[in-house]
């Protein structure tokens, strides 16, 4: 699958409190509303200005903090097609796969705010159209490819009625 969009560049240590702040705790049962505040404390203009298909690009340890699955869900719901980061916190990474949001570990240092990117999930490449560079990312573990390919863990269970990770 080829994904195309613009990069929204964030720094290191973007926490789940940046992505889905605790002050909107009461909106956790209203994800479309919560998604209007996604990443608000890291970049207030992001939610209103990003376009469907755009990419969230982070630095080190993206998604650290809470287990709130709402965080990757609202990034996806806001329309982002993937998150690219130097590294991810463990629970966020697993949650993202479970909700069907591609998360790619890649050297994001050279990607700048607003760069046009083209991601080829199968080939494992990110083409930075603005800068004429191509980066490659390590493939996801096979278990995660499987779950992501099925559209997340719930879809996986709907399809097989059980874990089918072989």
């Amino acid at each position: 699958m080829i994904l195309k969009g613009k990069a929204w560049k964030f720094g290191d240590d973007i926490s789940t409190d940046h992505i889905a702040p605790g002050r909107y705790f009461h909106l956790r049962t209203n994800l479309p509303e919560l998604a209007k505040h996604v990443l608000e404390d890291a970049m207030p203009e992001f939610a209103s200005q990003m376009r469907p298909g755009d990419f969230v690009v982070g630095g080190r340890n993206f998604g650290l903090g809470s287990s709130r699955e709402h965080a990757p869900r609202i990034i996806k719901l806001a329309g982002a097609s993937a998150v690219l980061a130097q590294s991810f916190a463990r629970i966020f990474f697993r949650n993202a796969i479970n909700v069907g949001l591609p998360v790619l570990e890649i050297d994001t240092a050279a990607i700048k705010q607003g760069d046009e990117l083209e991601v080829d999930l199968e080939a494992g490449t990110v083409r930075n159209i603005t800068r004429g560079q191509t980066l490659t990312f390590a493939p996801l573990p096979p278990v995660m490819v499987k779950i992501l390919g099925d559209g997340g863990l719930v879809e996986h269970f709907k399809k097989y009625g059980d874990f089918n990770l072989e």
Partner: protein
Amino acid sequence: MASTLAEKIIASHVGREVRPGEIVITGVDVAALQDGTGPLALLQLEELGLVKAHNPAGTVLFIDHAAPSPRKELSNAHISLRNFARETGAVLSEINEGVCHQRLVESFAKPGDILIGADSHSCTSGALAAFATGMGSTDVAIGIATGRTWLKVPETFRIVMKGGFKPGVFAKDLMLRLIGDIGADGATYMALEFTGSLAAAMTMAERFTLANMAVEAGAKTGLFAADETTRKFLAGQDREEDFKPLAADEGAAYARTVEIDASSLEPLVSAPHTVDNTQTVAEAAGRKVDQVFIGTCTNGRIEDLRVAAAALKGRRRHPRTRLIITPASRTVYLQAAVEGLLKIFVEAGATVTGPGCGACVGVHGGILGDGEVCVATQNRNFQGRMGNAKSFIYLASPATAAATAVKGEIADPRELI
């Protein structure tokens, strides 16, 4: 082959030896949800047509993050948890009972268990030698319905602790030092295993504080061996039968080992806005503080309240500094009442709240104003954590927090105790 604690616990569930990096599907002994993550988990189960609990006695729904409910949306979320518990026979922990992780160690987790919780600090139960880890709502939902989950067997990062704490220095300071040293992603995907002469000498309360913050270094869980101290703790909760001794094998393979000598430590804080931004209290001293918060699954236990009370007895909070104290559970609350600690707190000018998460997560009961500074005994100081992205949170031990409340600025607890 020799196994680490994490490998041993997973192996006993899958019935064969396991090695780091392997993916296993394993049975789950305890699955927990709280009021922030639970409603989404239950929606997932509805979507799957799996509204059931495979093991109701080991399925616990906690109403703790917004307890009592501050607004109707959350009250409605609470109704969904109560209904699920009623329909499936799962255990409900009501608004009066306390923070999930404290309740889990008091009444549910036991050595050798695999525990999954839709809350990142589920690693707290690792102090009881349970492989306890935080996951998202969907993972835990599936765990509840099927009694199983998938895990990648983690590498183990060994922390060898030795020496003893000097007066005024506590387990919290050790953990802030460790996270400052290895970084907020220093143990990502790994299990921490706390060992050494100091680990063996530690009280359960100290072990819980360390295990609780394992996730702040990115770890999957934070494990201690189950020993005589564990047995006594469980006996004290009327469940000695849940005890079994458990330790890593001699010669187990560790991905990394660091040593830490507690005797070399002094009181520390984590400065805004990351947990690994560790500073000495001496460096941070003098910073004016608007609010002090003592409580949470990290440091809201009776031992923590005793330390705070010793520093606050016969003293008053500084007029500029609000002081909020929230016992971690009903049991802790009751014990604090029996020991006269609540009286000391109220006389010192504290607001003592009912048990729960309280001000920790920015939902209610202690939200910070613009530009305000808080010293808190919790585990996270991320921007916006306490409900306002324009505020500043320092993490500290209960002793440092209490000393700060008295002085009105970040203060060294050795001045008071």
